[in-house]
């Protein structure tokens, strides 16, 4: 169930539509401090259903919509799309490619789309259940958070193990 590509538009600092095509092996992302690398990681969490603004470094969900800059006005919505290869049928959906999209308007209205058909957040979450993929899985290690498993208490650690089991 490979990640094929991620497209961002209006998501945090990605004011312009930007596409990342992922390699089947190792894709490395580099750039100066503050250029937007961790924002790419936030976008993946977000499109997979992350509902905690805090876990995206914000305080309210609208914080992920491009807020403008010296040279640009703010935008009216944030959008991210993640495309998976499903040729091995690991995702319980009848298609060899799975495209998940999420859009958030400043009004607070949200849209979710699965292979071009509107759906609900829970449909997205249920799709990825049992695949080890998810906004809070152990497969996504955020900046500064690598030690969490070691520093947390025995019971917190258990929760992460349970997710894997």
């Amino acid at each position, binding site marked *: 169930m490979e990640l094929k590509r991620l497209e961002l538009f209006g998501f945090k600092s990605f004011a312009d539509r930007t596409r990342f095509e992922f390699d089947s092996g190792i894709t*490395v992302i580099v750039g100066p401090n503050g250029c*937007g690398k961790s924002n790419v990681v936030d976008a993946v969490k977000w499109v997979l259903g992350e509902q905690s603004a805090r876990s995206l470094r914000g305080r309210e969900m609208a914080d992920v919509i491009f807020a403008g800059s010296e040279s640009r006005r703010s935008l009216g919505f944030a959008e991210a799309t993640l495309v998976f290869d499903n040729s091995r049928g690991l995702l319980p959906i009848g298609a060899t490619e799975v495209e998940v999209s999420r859009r958030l308007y400043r009004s607070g209205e949200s849209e979710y789309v699965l292979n071009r058909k509107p759906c609900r957040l829970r449909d997205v979450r249920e799709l990825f259940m049992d695949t080890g993929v998810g906004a809070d899985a152990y497969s996504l290690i955020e900046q500064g958070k690598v030690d969490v498993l070691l520093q947390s208490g025995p019971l917190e650690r258990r929760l992460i193990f349970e997710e894997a089991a």
Partner: protein
Amino acid sequence: SRERFMKTFESIRGHFQELFRKLFGGGKADVYLENEADVLESGIEVVARPPGKQLQRISLLSGGEKTMAAVALLLAIFRARPSPFCILDEVDAALDEANIDRFTGLVREFLDRSQFVIITHNKRTMGIGDVLYGVTMGEPGVSRKVSVKFSDIHQAGYVTDDKQA
């Protein structure tokens, strides 16, 4: 469900012991239930002893040692319950060059079953990428993606904005 948890747990445990030895070039680590009688509720403890050192609380380990032990545990969970992809955001921040080599060497061993997206500032880590993307902010506040050739990094260490993606 109790059996399923224990099966995964024992698998993680075995992998952790092995991956720790691999990353540290020796030493010993383990993960175990605080209360073996209470499989479904017990917290999980971690111990780790780098080669040649005395076994002590994990809190006394150095910053880089904690990162390496955490990576061993995370990849052990990964191996017990493979996830299709793994995103690592600057997990190498606390590592010295020798440990970065061990870390990147281990990531390569996981390529047969997982895809990686790695964010880094370190040239050695950049070296294991099959594909390299740069993110820049030529226009302040607006992120852009550029493709980076390996020859670019070794000279400047940095991605300049005049490249098109």
